[in-house]
Each structure stands twice: as structure tokens, then as C-alpha cells.
């Protein structure tokens, strides 16, 4: 009985974020996805640490090596994790390299090993990597996810691609959010003519077919631009058409909140406009905005993937998920090297996790609903 009253009185004094968190916590899958996104974010922060080898290093000799799985069973015996070696044989008829597993050679998996040098978080010079393979000759690091046409290690490329794809999604959404909140907020709070104009602009932008317009905009980027400039240009292009939905959301919240009695009450005790907006209205919809933003990120990731896949987004040597998938652009390459589709699986997982997380946040966003 005492424990029960304790718990209830805890609920009585729980601020909004705590209530939201308690509600979110009930959605087990969303919590799992939160962890997953956390891991992906970790990779994005320091892909070098997760990479096993230099993702840019090409080696014509090592083209199209299939995935080399980490195994724990050898000769029917449970052992420490290891990877089999591979040997390439040129097929005499097709003249293609065919890689077969050499179960004589075993490379045990080691953690926190030394490898190529890099700066952790761009600051601290180090050569530690999460995983490595004991005994693998230099330049012959086992390819966990296989290699591509140029013999580049897909696993390491994927880690690097994660950084760019996630950050493009994040930056584009951040830009859209900024635009959306400012314009939606102006629209919703002031109403009238301003609102009318902004609403018409939004309707117009929403009536545009997105992909053709994105394609045209990206095609207009000069070919001579360096990778970083293209990166930012693509981000801005994505954000340019992406803010409308958020703006509508913010505007809708503002409009409905403006009519709430507690906002009127705040005005009637003499609270200033700034105080009403930032102390009463904004906190009431931040969780909704966070949810909306979480749901917008996967869309941006997918869009970047589209553009890069079609060759109009990021271009090599930049590495993104879309750029990697470009390698798998036609049936022929997929049939010959199905592992080239693996970055796609990564896209699906990331988008899936973000969507579920966003839905969980949205459901928890208003802890006072019932």
C-alpha cells in the first residue's frame, strides 16, 4: 500500500518529459529502435573506428570477393569467432575470378586492434579499431561484406557511408525544421495575410512532383564542384522541398494552442507575448516536433539514396549508401555479386528503426491524452 502511494505521488509530481518518457518506455520495439539508432549514430560519429580497412583503397586483384562471415563453428566445434580465408581461381571459360573459402586458413577476430591511423572524432590521433583479424596479411583484410568492382572493402565503405548518409538526412531535416518552425510559427501565430501567403507557397511546393524537381536541381549543379560543396548543395536541395510538412504541423499546433484556455489564461494574467510563446506554447509541442523530425529523417535518407543511386546526388569519391548502391545498378551486377545489395539492407534497417522510433515518440508525445 505504501509502495503504491509512493508510486502515485511520484506520478503526481512528474514533469512532462518524465511522463513522456514513461509512456515511450512502454513501447518496447521503439525503445529497441532507439538503441539501434544510438548505435548507428555512434558509427556516424566515428566510422573509422568501426571500419576494418581503408575504404578508398582499391585493389583490382581483389574485386568481387563474396561476404566473409564471422563464424564460431569449425569442424563441428564451437570456437572463438574467426573468418575463413578465401582463394581466387580464374574460371578458364568465363575468365572471371571465382572466390572459394579456404578452410585451412583461419583469421581469428580480435577487438580493439591496431590498424590504419586516423583521428578519432577528427581530433585524437589513434590507430585503434573495433575489430580486426589476427594474422591477415596487409592489404588482404577479410571483407566482411565482400568487395566491389574495384576490390574496395564494403564493410568499411558502409561505415563511412553511414556517416554521410545519416548526416545528410540530419542536416537536411535540421534545415527544413528551422524553415518549417519559423515559417509555420509565423503563419500560425500571426495568421491573416502572412498566413495566407505562406500557406499558398506551401500548397504550391507540395503540388510539385518532388523527384523530377530534385533531379533537375541536382543536374544543375556544376560538375566541377568539389565533393563537400555538392554535399551541401544536395542537402539544401532536399531541405528546400522538405520543410512544408513540418511547417504545416507547427502551424496547426500553434493554431490549436492559441485557442487553448490555458494560453488565454496566461495572457489574462499579463504574460507577455514572448513568454506565452516560449513558456506555454513551444513546450507543448516540442515533443510533437521531435517526433515529426524523427519521421522526416528517414525520408531524407531515402531521397539522398535515390538521387545518388541515379547518379545525380553525391558522386564518388564521396561514399554514401546511395553511392554504394550505384554499384548494383543493373541486373547483371546483382546477379554476379548479390552482396552489392547489402548497403540496401542497411538503408532499410536505418529507415525502419527511425520510423518505428518516430511513431513511438509520436504516440508518447502527448502524455496527457487520456
Amino acid at each position, binding site marked *: 500500500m505504501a509502495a503504491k502511494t509512493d508510486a502515485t505521488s511520484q506520478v503526481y509530481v512528474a514533469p512532462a518529459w518524465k511522463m513522456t518518457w514513461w509512456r515511450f518506455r512502454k513501447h518496447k520495439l521503439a525503445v529497441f529502435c532507439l538503441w539501434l539508432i544510438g548505435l548507428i549514430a555512434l558509427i556516424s560519429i566515428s566510422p573509422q573506428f568501426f571500419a576494418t580497412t581503408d575504404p578508398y583503397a582499391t585493389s583490382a586483384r581483389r574485386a568481387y570477393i563474396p561476404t566473409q562471415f564471422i563464424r564460431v563453428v569449425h569442424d563441428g566445434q564451437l570456437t572463438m569467432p574467426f573468418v575463413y580465408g578465401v582463394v581466387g581461381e580464374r574460371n578458364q571459360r568465363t575468365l572471371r575470378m571465382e572466390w572459394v573459402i579456404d578452410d585451412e586458413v583461419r583469421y581469428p577476430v580480435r577487438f580493439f586492434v591496431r590498424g590504419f591511423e586516423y583521428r578519432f572524432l577528427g581530433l585524437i590521433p589513434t590507430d585503434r579499431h573495433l575489430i580486426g583479424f589476427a594474422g591477415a596479411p596487409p592489404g588482404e583484410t577479410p571483407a566482411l561484406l565482400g568487395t566491389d568492382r574495384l576490390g574496395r572493402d564494403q564493410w568499411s565503405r558502409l561505415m563511412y557511408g553511414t556517416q554521410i548518409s545519416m548526416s545528410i538526412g540530419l542536416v537536411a531535416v535540421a534545415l527544413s525544421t528551422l524553415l518549417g518552425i519559423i515559417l509555420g510559427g509565423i503563419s500560425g501565430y500571426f495568421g491573416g495575410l502572412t498566413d495566407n501567403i505562406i500557406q499558398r507557397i506551401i500548397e*504550391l511546393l*507540395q*503540388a*510539385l*512532383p*518532388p*523527384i*523530377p*524537381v530534385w*533531379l*533537375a*536541381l541536382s*543536374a*544543375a549543379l*556544376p560538375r566541377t564542384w568539389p565533393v563537400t560543396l555538392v554535399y551541401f548543395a544536395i542537402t539544401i536541395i532536399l531541405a528546400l522541398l522538405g520543410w512544408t510538412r513540418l511547417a504545416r504541423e507547427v502551424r496547426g499546433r500553434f493554431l490549436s494552442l492559441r485557442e487553448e484556455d490555458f494560453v488565454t489564461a496566461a495572457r489574462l494574467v499579463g504574460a507577455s507575448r514572448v513568454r506565452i510563446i516560449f513558456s506555454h506554447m513551444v513546450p507543448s509541442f516540442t515533443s510533437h516536433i521531435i517526433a515529426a523530425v524523427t519521421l522526416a529523417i*528517414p525520408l531524407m535518407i*531515402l531521397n539522398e*539514396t*535515390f538521387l545518388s*543511386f*541515379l*547518379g*545525380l546526388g553525391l558522386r564518388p569519391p564521396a561514399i554514401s549508401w546511395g553511392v554504394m*548502391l550505384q554499384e*548494383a*545498378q*543493373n*541486373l547483371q551486377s*546483382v*546477379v554476379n555479386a*548479390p552482396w552489392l*545489395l547489402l548497403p*540496401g539492407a542497411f*538503408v*532499410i*534497417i536505418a*529507415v*525502419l528503426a527511425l*520510423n*518505428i522510433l518516430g511513431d513511438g515518440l509520436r504516440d508518447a508525445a502527448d502524455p496527457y491524452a487520456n
Partner: protein
Amino acid sequence: MHWFILKRLMVVPLLLFIFSIIAFVLIQAPPGDYLTSYIAELAQGGTTITQDQIDSLRRQYGLDQPVYVQYFLWVGNLLQGDLGYSFEWRRSNAELIGERLLLTLALTTLSLIFTWVVAIPIGIISATRQYSVIDYVFTVLNYIGLATPNFLLALVLMWIAFDSFGLSVTGLFSPEFQQAPWSWARFADMMGKIWLPMIVLGTAGTAQIARVVRANLLDELGKPYTEMARAKGLPEWKLVLKYPTRVAIAPVVSTLGWYFPQLLSGGLVVAVVMSLPTIGPLLLRALVGQDMYLAGTIILIYCILTVVGTLVSDVLLALLDPRIRMDGA
């Protein structure tokens, strides 16, 4: 009803005007103009061209005029049915776009129908059996459908078809019908191939729309009129289909406004992967090759199709919902 549609129709010319400007700006945006790249291309091919010839070409296309004159020249030609000429293909744009447009529309419409036919029952089943196993299965499938880029789905399906059945499922026609004139045999051949791109294209939308139907229906199932229908003694399936479903589907029809352009856009990527003879790959090629009038025309066509899609959805919505129909009457 007439009032309502008239109101919508009034906006269309204004929208098209703005879209034509946007399309024109887009084709003017790249540095240089198509003539420069054309000349460069000709030079590469070994053909030399004199300054006089260049000037006469410039005059012909009004490139020596101010930008707004060029715009009106372009729009004027478009209004007269002259879609311009493609340098890259050495054919008139109208000729290039013609059949591809038809195929684009066919594919988009079929995908739309596929989406609705699949998504609406899924939404209804999920909502009426909320928290059941089947609801969870559909929910999981929906999430995956939403997360899968359709070009990836296309690649995977093509790979499976090839790997397991030895089928090469690219294109819309078998080789013998590729250039053939329309005939029943050619139509049958197309229908035998169009289903795969249709499924690929419709999948993401199916997931989205099934979610919308489910959420709307769940809202409506809690409404007093549903309970009232139940209190009348109507069988459950009958009342669900007659009342809440009709209310829940009305917003789905209005999603046509954004779903149709999404399908058109998505079709572009799928078409590239599956080598479909639609306007999508043509646009991509035109953009890459800076064949700008062709690109501009296609973008404008996309815009027009989008507007038409929105208009159709408005009319359907008015037919479904008497409140909209009688608005302003």
C-alpha cells in the same frame, strides 16, 4: 457540386503558369545552354561548325533575346502544341514523349489501382482486428514496405526472378514487340510484363495508405454513429463496410493529391532500374545530357499530371462526401 469543381478549376491555369516558370527556371539553371553542349558534342563527333551557323541557331531559338522573351517563346510554342526538338535524339520532343507518356500513365494508374485494392482491405482488417496477430503481421509488413526504396525492391525482385526462374523481367515489351505498332498481341505482351513494375511501384504506397486507412478507421470505429449502427442490430462486417469505412476512405481519396505525384516520381526511379520505356528515364537522360527543352517539357508534364491528379481526387472526394459536395450550394 458544380460550384466546388468550378472553384478548383479556376486555380488550375494559375498553377500551370507558375509551374511553367519553375520548369523554365530549372532548365535555365545549369551553366551555359544546351546549344553550347550541343556544339561541344558536335565538335567531339568531328563536325565543325562555323560562328555563322551558331548565330543562326541562337536566333532560331531566341537565345539572343532576353530571358523573359525566351520564356514566352517557349510557352507560346508549347501552347501551339510544339514541344520543341531534342538535339540529342534528333527527333521532335512530341514524338519522343508521345508513347512513353501513355505507358507512364498506364503504369501509374495500374499501380494506383493495385495500391488501393491491396491497401484498403489490409487497413480494414488491421483496424477491425486491432492488436491481433494479423494486425501485427500487417504492421510489420507496412514498416518494411515503407522503409524499402522501390528501386531496391525492383533489383531484388529482378534478381529473384532471374536466379530462381531464369526470367529477365526488364522492360515492358518482349524484343519482338519493342518497335511494333500497337496491336492486341503487343498489348497482351505488355500486360504480361507490367505487373512486376506495378507491384514494385505500389508497395511503398500500399504501406502508407494501409496505415492511413487503419488509423482513420480506428478513429471512426469509436464514433457514436458506429455504435448506433450496431445498436440497430446490423451485422458487424456490414456496418463496418457501410459506415466507418466510407468515412475513413474519404481522406484516402484525398491522398491521391500527393500520392499520384509520388507514384509518378517513384516510377521514374523504377523505370531506370527496370529499363521501362516511360518518360522517367528520358528525363534522366535529358538532364544528364543537358537536353534542356526536352527536360523542361517533361518536368512540366509531370507538373500537369500532378495537378490533374489533385483535381481528380477533389472530384472523387466530393462524390463521396456530401458535406463537400454541398459546400457553398
